[in-house]
């Protein structure tokens, strides 16, 4: 079974530029999550989707972050404009509906200069 796929793996941008990350969950997993992991910290949930609907985006900085999952499968997370403090690893995870376990992708490491 293929795992969660993410791209790109690494990205370096200047502050105020925009960037987008892509995630393809495990096949059949209806629930998709984006987490932000700042160096030295545990991952923090940004947004949770159930199919193509948003379940929880309470910790998403909506003035600069956006995410979509239009067809209920893959998802895109965008930052516009980026700030220095957005430097982090962005992790995508997926789970079955009602499943307890979230499975994580390899992450995208973002450096904002």
């Amino acid at each position: 079974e293929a795992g969660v796929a993410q791209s790109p793996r690494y990205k370096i941008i200047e502050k105020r530029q925009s960037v987008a990350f892509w995630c393809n969950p495990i096949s059949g997993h209806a629930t998709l999550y984006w987490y932000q992991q700042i160096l030295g910290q545990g991952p923090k949930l940004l947004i949770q989707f159930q199919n193509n609907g948003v379940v929880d985006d309470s910790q998403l900085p909506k003035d600069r972050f956006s995410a979509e999952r239009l067809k209920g499968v893959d998802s895109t997370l965008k930052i516009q404009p980026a700030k220095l403090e957005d430097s982090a690893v962005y992790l995508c995870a997926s789970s079955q509906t009602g499943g307890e376990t979230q499975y994580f992708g390899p992450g995208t490491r973002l450096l904002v200069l």
Partner: protein
Amino acid sequence: AQSVAQPEDQVNVAEGNPLTVKCTYSVSGNPYLFWYVQYPNRGLQFLLKYITGDNLVKGSYGFEAEFNKSQTSFHLKKPSALVSDSALYFCAVRDRYFGNEKLTFGTGTRLTIIP
């Protein structure tokens, strides 16, 4: 609000010795508890979980964890450490209700196994 504490940033263990990585949690109601491991430049890899039932749960690579409700702890253990166990370990908690599956993570414990 739910929270997780991993009191040790770093744990060093000699190869072949038993290891313990500590975790305590706070959540309203009965928790789901998880351990994940992170290797350099890799995502989080699921190790084991406690949902219900036996307080001692077994997971991948010989790891196990003991759920202690009275002490609100979920310590990760392994009887005999391997050098390949060296990595960053995260404890996480979520509550049981559908629609509230957010995982709250600790700050991580770096485990180093000394040959």
